[in-house]
């Protein structure tokens, strides 16, 4: 009974954390976009526009869910759920501090990647079932993009696993816990001397942006050619769930980058390690992702796939081989 309650509590906290982040990152995104483009962004509702996300949510929920004629009804309705649910599932395995983790799983890394790649299925469902050529094309693009970018991302994660010798996310952080120079991104001290790590971080960062369909890699929702991409026929909370899924995936990507490269909840100077350091690092990465979105225009689909197949995949493979070699030598 107590175990059931604990699990229930963990799940509720995971859902609340994902939903809270999704809602307020939308606000951060809009405000950040405004400030970068010299306009204020949404600032009317509440102080600094802080009431905007709940009001947006109420507005979306109050709208009618329109199912287009000829749409595959079951798939159409299940697609947003399939985007949002795996994202929430991933949060169960993510450690935010040495005590703040829903479930310490030994194959946490595998589990997170497995659920993260399920999100693409929701996008395909949405694109296929809404019976719209634009959304179908966007879904096909999303699949090719996900296939292309999952490979270098997982190879980079494999490099980390190789160095850490474990797929337990908790243990990966514990190995970097001393200070700044023990983090995986800096090659100087610690158990792992690997001068290729900044490079790995770059590959991982680019891939996590492409995996979550973020600009400049948001070919799945390229407004210029595909109107709105895979969620073109969605309104109401279906659209809202796609949005929340996207932002939840951003949080997962930033969390993984923090765990793998930036030493998780350890402090740069060895002082007061704790969940706040984790949040600072995570939100710094999320800010960078938002910042990049409002700096660069969208790439072409060819440019996107070329970057992955011609540069990132060979580079990450070489990176993996060299890391293995370096670990053998030292």
């Amino acid at each position, binding site marked *: 009974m107590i175990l059931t309650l604990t699990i229930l509590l963990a799940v509720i906290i995971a859902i609340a954390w994902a939903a809270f982040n999704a809602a307020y990152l939308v606000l951060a995104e809009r405000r*950040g976009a405004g*400030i*970068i*483009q*010299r*306009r*204020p962004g949404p600032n009317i509702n509440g102080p600094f526009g802080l009431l905007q996300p709940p009001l947006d949510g109420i507005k979306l929920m109050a709208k009618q869910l329109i199912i287009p004629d000829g749409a595959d009804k079951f798939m159409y309705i299940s697609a947003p759920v399939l985007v949002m649910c795996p994202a929430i599932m991933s949060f169960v395995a993510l450690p935010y501090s040495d005590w703040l983790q829903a479930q310490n799983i030994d194959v946490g890394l595998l589990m997170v990647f497995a659920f993260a790649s399920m999100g693409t299925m929701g996008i395909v469902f949405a694109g296929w079932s809404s019976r719209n050529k634009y959304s179908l094309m966007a879904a096909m693009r999303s699949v090719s993009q996900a296939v292309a970018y999952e490979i270098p991302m997982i190879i980079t994660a494999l490099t980390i696993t190789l160095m850490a010798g474990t797929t337990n996310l908790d243990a990966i952080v514990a190995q970097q816990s001393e200070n700044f120079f023990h983090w995986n991104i800096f090659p100087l001290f610690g158990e792992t001397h690997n001068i290729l790590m900044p490079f790995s971080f770059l590959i991982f960062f680019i891939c996590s942006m492409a995996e979550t369909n973020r600009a400049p890699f948001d070919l799945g929702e390229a407004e210029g050619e595909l109107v709105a991409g895979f969620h073109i026929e969605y309104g109401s909370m279906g659209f809202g769930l796609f949005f929340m899924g996207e932002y939840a995936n951003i949080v997962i990507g930033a969390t993984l980058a923090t765990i793998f490269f930036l030493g998780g909840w350890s402090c740069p100077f060895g002082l007061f390690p704790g969940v706040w350091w984790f949040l600072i690092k995570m939100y710094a990465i999320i800010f960078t992702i938002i*910042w*990049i979105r*409002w*700096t*660069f225009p969208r790439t072409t689909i060819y440019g996107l796939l070329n970057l992955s197949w011609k540069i990132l995949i060979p580079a990450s493979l070489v990176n993996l081989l060299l890391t293995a070699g370096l670990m053998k030598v030292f």
Partner: protein
Amino acid sequence: MAAKVKQLPSRGGTPAEKVYLIEIFKGMAITLKHFLRNLWDNSNLYVRHYPEVQPDIPARWRGRHRLLTHPDGTPKCVACFMCQTNCPADCIMIKAGTRIDGVTEKMPVSFTIDLAECIYCGYCVEACPEDAIRMDTGIYAFTSSNREEMKIGMTEMLSLKGGFPEEEYQKGLEGE
């Protein structure tokens, strides 16, 4: 006929630019500069906080119409139909009648402008021989939920006041 081909020197071919990453960081530095400047001091944004801050309207600007009156309160309009004839959008509807206040011979019984039709060209103002109609109220926003309310009548237009002092309005006319 052969097309003229103009060869432009291609740019972006230096090794530093071909690496991409350096240019990417340069671009990010630019947006970060904007971000930080507007985060600390957002007083010089390119947008007007519209409902709170109203736009600055010059005297020559053509807004809602109004009908002018003589100092004794009688309408200047003599129902000559100049504005109605001249109106490219056919939005002015005048009904003429006998003048009852003794100023001249004719006056409008009703003078209606359909604001949903009006294109705010200002030809009625230019055509008017009596300076009886002006578009100087400075009212630029007019909304309604049905078409009938978009038609404004004579009493409403007579009651509107000009948004600018008389000399400023005349100066604006000289500018044209």
